[in-house]
Structure formats: C-alpha cells, structure tokens
C-alpha cells in the first residue's frame, strides 16, 4: 500500500514529538489505544490559563505510519485553538487532510479520541464542567 505524500512527510518529519509535564496543572494528557491493538497515542496539550488557548502540544505514538502522521497533524492543528475549537476536530478532517485509505481510518479515530482525552484531562484537573463548557470558578 502506498502512503500519501502528506503521511510520508509527517512520518519522516514528525512535528511536536515529545513530552510535557503531565503533573502540571495546565497540561492535559490523553493516552489512548493499546499495545495489543498495534497503536497507542499519547497526546498532550499545554493551555494558557489566561486565555484558555492551547499554547503547546506534544505527542508520542506507537503505531503505523498513518497513526504517527495523524497524531503529528493533530498537534499542529491544536496549537492556538481554544478547547472548544479543539474538541470539534473531527476524525474525518484528518482522513481528508492525510488522504488516509479506509483501512487506516481507525488511526484518525484514535487521534480524535486522544484530543478529546487530553482536553478532558485538562478540564478535570481544573475543575471545569464539560457540560457548560465554560470556566467554572472552582
């Protein structure tokens, strides 16, 4: 199976590989997938507490080229977005951008799950209600 140019580019030059301090209050971490399934993604966001905007994003992924490219792309997209904007990233946006074939759609689903898990982690840490989607004065 041939990979698209964009997948190859992200695979060869992955953006934002690394780790943020998972214990920091303004960092949200999402760890999704399982080694038994052949892919694990860890996606982290660092949120500017004043503006609620994602300042930095990092990932590490165990998986195939499409999984790595999906998470790399996700970190690019996350930077500069508000949490609500980030939460609205849809896996099909990733499929489209990377031209993923049907057998690789699960990679994009995993990336969306990772984004949502990271946001959720941040919100929980900061006592932000997910329903109101607004800063709660905890």
């Amino acid at each position, binding site marked *: 199976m041939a990979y698209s140019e964009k997948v190859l580019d992200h695979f060869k030059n992955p953006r934002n590989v690394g780790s943020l301090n998972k214990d920091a209050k303004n960092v949200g971490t999402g760890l999704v997938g399982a080694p038994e*399934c052949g892919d694990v993604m860890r996606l982290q966001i660092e949120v500017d507490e004043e503006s609620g905007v994602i300042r930095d994003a990092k990932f590490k992924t165990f998986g195939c080229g499409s999984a790595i490219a999906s998470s790399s792309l996700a970190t690019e997209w996350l930077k500069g977005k508000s949490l609500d904007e980030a939460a609205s990233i849809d896996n099909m946006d990733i499929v489209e951008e990377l031209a993923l074939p049907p057998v690789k759609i699960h990679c994009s689903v995993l990336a969306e799950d990772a984004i949502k898990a990271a946001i959720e982690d941040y919100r929980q840490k900061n006592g932000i209600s997910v329903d109101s989607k607004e800063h709660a004065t905890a």
Partner: protein
Amino acid sequence: MEKRRLIYLDNNATTPCDPRVVDAMIPFFYEKHGNAASRSHQFGWEAEDAVDYAREQIAKLLNVEDKEIIFTSGATESNNLALKGVFEMYAKKGNHIITAETEHKAILDTCKHLEKAGAEITYLKVQEDGLINLEELEAAIKPTTILVSLMWANNETGVIQPMQEIARICEKHGVLFHSDATQAVGKIKTHPREIGVHLMSFTAHKMYGPKGVGGLYVSRKNPRVKVTAQMDGGGHERGMRSGTLNVPGIVGFGKAAEIAMNEMEQDAARLSRLRDKLQTELTKLEETKINGNVDSRMPHVTNISFKHVEGEGLMMTFNQNIAVSSGSACTSASLEPSYVLVGMGLGDDLAHSSIRFSLGRFTTEEEVDQAIELVRNGVNHMRELSPIWEMYKDGVDLSKIEWSAH
C-alpha cells in the same frame, strides 16, 4: 545520484528467478511453444520431452520417482489437491484430519472448507518455540483419522517441524502424512520417501523458479496413494490434475531444482552465516526477542520482535531501502497480528512488533551490513516516538495500565 538498489530480505514471500532458470525457459515461449499433450507432431513431442526432463530434475532433488511428481499451478493448489483429494479418496476409511494452528492459510482454509463437507479437523497447538508436541499429535489420532498435514518449515519463523518423528507416528498408526514443504524444498534436504512423507506440496517461485507452477509429490508405492482430482478435464498428470501443462514454467521449475541440488548446501552455509550476523547484531538492541526455535530452523530466516515499536511503522522507516515483512497485519484489511506468532503464545503487542527477515541466494554481505545499520536506526527512531518505550524506560509496568481498547 546513483540510486541504491533496494535490499530484498523477503525471500520467504517469493524469490527472484535465477537467470539460468529464465534462460532455460525462453525457447519454450517461442520456437518450442508446443502443447505437451499434442501427440501428433514435433512441437508436442518436444514439449513433452521437456516436461519429462523437468520432472526428472525435480524427482532427483527430492530423491523420488519422476512419476510421483504432479505438476500444479503452485503450492496453494497442491495443498488443496492433497487435502481435498485425500478426503474424497479415503472417505470410506474416515473423515478425520489433523493439522496445526500455525499452518499456511492454504491448509487452514482448505480444512475449513472440508469441515463444511463433513470432515472433522483437529488443529494442534504449537509450543512456544513453534514446534508441535508429538505426544499431542499421537493422542489426537483415532480410528477415523485419514491424514496428518503438517508443514515442513514455517513461512513466518522458518521453524522446522520434527518431520522424522511425525512420520514415525503416522507410520505406526497407518495414517497418511502430507507436508506443505513450500518453504523447505530447494533450500534444505527434503526427501519425502526417506522420511516417510506420503504427499508433499512445493512451488517453483520460492526456489528461484517462476511463479505459477508448483508440484505435489504423491507416493506411488508403500503406500500407493491416490487423490481424487479437483478439476475435470483432459486427465493430465495421471488423471490427478487436468489442464494444459505450463511448459515454460515447468522447464524453469526443473532448472531451478537442478541448480538447487547442486548449490543448496553452499547457499545454506553462506546464508546461515549472514543470517546469524544479522540476528546477532540486531538482538544487541535492548528488548528484542527471536521468535521460534533457533536450533530447528531454516538457515536463511529470522523473525525478531523489537519491543515497544510497531512493526509496520518500523518498516516504514527503512522501506525505501529494505524490503521485509512484518507480523503486524496493519497493512492488510484485517488489523489482526500474525496468527502464527500469536499461536506460539506471543502476546499481540509482541506480534505487532515483529519483523521477518528472509535472505536468499542473491543477498550479499554488504546488503546485510546495510540492513543492520538501517534497521538499528529505525528501531531507535521509532522508540524515540513511542510512548510505551518511554513508559518502559521510566519503569512503568505496562501490564498494569488500563488501556482503552478500540
């Protein structure tokens, strides 16, 4: 810039044709284009002679009689013919067939088909090293057992089954023994009569011959084995396999057998040295595991798991330079890891992390050296990217993590 040749380390998938094989085949596409079944003219006689000669070349390699070789389109057909043909021919004797979980799909899917037709199939488990348990095999035999089908060498791991011991058990219980020897013929000594194998499947394209031609050895005496034909037609190949013979392919197959007979030993010695070098160097990396019994294994194969790195991703780091295959089936429609490795008790995570390296006659030491370098860099690169490698390095017990299945 000089384009570097892609290093081919996937010889268990298929081997390139030996140029001597192609040279032998070419006249049979042109001036010697006859149908081996045409009895009335020179073209037919010439083609028939060429097929007879090829049959002899193959029979010599296997140390059997030439009449015991049936030509087919490949090992998948040979396996189908052996299993279905024996099942139908010996229906009065019984309906039970014994095989193993780590067989090739051509065996397993044929068995599934036969189950629907009323066969009872026992799928033996294998031990951690990939070998079957002989006591389990013997215990599985019952009065209705007509056939034991076990591969000579495994395609994914190169593990060689204890053929002699299996044959003895079959002999003792009067059960026919078929072996899918696709990965072994032409690479190591495979003499079915000597061992006590009654039917044996093999193919040209795994031994430097062309694709699209294979063979089935069917013992003619002690015991005289017959299989029911699976295709109706002109009654070629002693009535067991109808269809115009693939004359150029068969000529190439014969030539490949002749070359194998003369060069097998030296090839095996050279390749096992190169394979050992590759394996030794790559297992110097942390957290690696060789899959399969290393003492009963094909000389040119090694299957290695690189923990905490996913196989397909790893391959992508070097697939511009090296061609190998992975036990992680993420590339195919199914996302299941190799059933062969899982059957050996390997966890799915390790199966997803495995790479099969299979060397061949045209592999050079320089290529092996380059491969070592490229794979090592690839593993290190992928581990830098791997969250589970980081966790492992931080001393996290990965088995204690609640992973979100998806």
